[in-house]
């Protein structure tokens, strides 16, 4: 087992464990948000191992840096006491979730090994320069649409945050 493969399995296990920590942590929302940070960072490491360098950097900046901080900000702003936390739903939906998990795992094991090995990559694949050039030439319409979406989200968040909607 080479070093990248070992790193992949290590961070995959870390991502799964911390994702379970997000979902299974019933008492403490701050701890759930911190588990979410660990998931995001280990996924960023896996992106690096998959030669997606720009995506890994943006994953850390946007997800671990902005989105989870926003979650933490709201959790601390609302100042929830632990008795404010509603209990999780009862047996039936947990059973459905377990069945779904078993199905996903079985399907994964059945299909395991059916994908071909990854081909060798051209020079600079997934780097800032090549991906940036692709973004601002072939995908320029997508970038414009993303800016429009973010503007709409800013306006929506501002309207929602107003105390009285008049």
């Amino acid at each position, binding site marked *: 087992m080479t070093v990248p493969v070992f790193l992949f399995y290590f961070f995959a296990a870390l991502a799964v464990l911390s994702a379970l920590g997000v979902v299974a942590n019933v008492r403490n929302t701050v701890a759930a948000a911190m588990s979410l940070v660990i998931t995001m960072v280990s996924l960023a490491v896996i992106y690096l191992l998959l030669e997606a360098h720009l995506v890994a950097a943006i994953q850390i900046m946007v997800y671990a840096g902005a989105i989870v901080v926003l979650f933490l900000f709201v959790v601390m702003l609302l100042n929830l006491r632990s008795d404010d936390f509603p209990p999780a739903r009862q047996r039936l939906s947990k059973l459905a979730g377990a069945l779904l998990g078993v199905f996903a795992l079985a399907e994964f094991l059945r299909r395991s090994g059916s994908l071909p090995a990854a081909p060798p990559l051209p020079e600079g694949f997934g780097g800032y320069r090549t991906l940036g050039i692709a973004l601002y030439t072939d995908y320029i319409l997508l970038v414009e649409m993303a800016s429009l979406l973010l503007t709409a989200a800013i306006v*929506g968040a501002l309207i929602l*945050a107003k105390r009285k909607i008049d």
Partner: protein
Amino acid sequence: MIPLDHVIGLSAILFTIGVVGVVTRRNVIVILMSIELMLNAVNLAFVGGNRLWPTGPAGVSYDGQVFVLMVITVAAAEVAVGLGIVISMFRNRDSVNIDDVSLLKW
């Protein structure tokens, strides 16, 4: 070389954990976090797919990674609006329990 079917398998496991979180939890903030988990699982599948098929008809193709960037944009917008909704819900109902807001439920 990283086995790509295991990347897809990790993506499936993370997505399942996210679905279970959305279905079983009642705290709105944790439900939003589980949605983030699901979006991340999809991102992982996209990056793995781009690693497996790095070339398109016109040379090197970045379709998967560009899609991931768009998903991250949508996730940022969704969290901004979603947490705004959570704050106004807490202001009006004094609760973050999803069962307390059932006005639109049949």
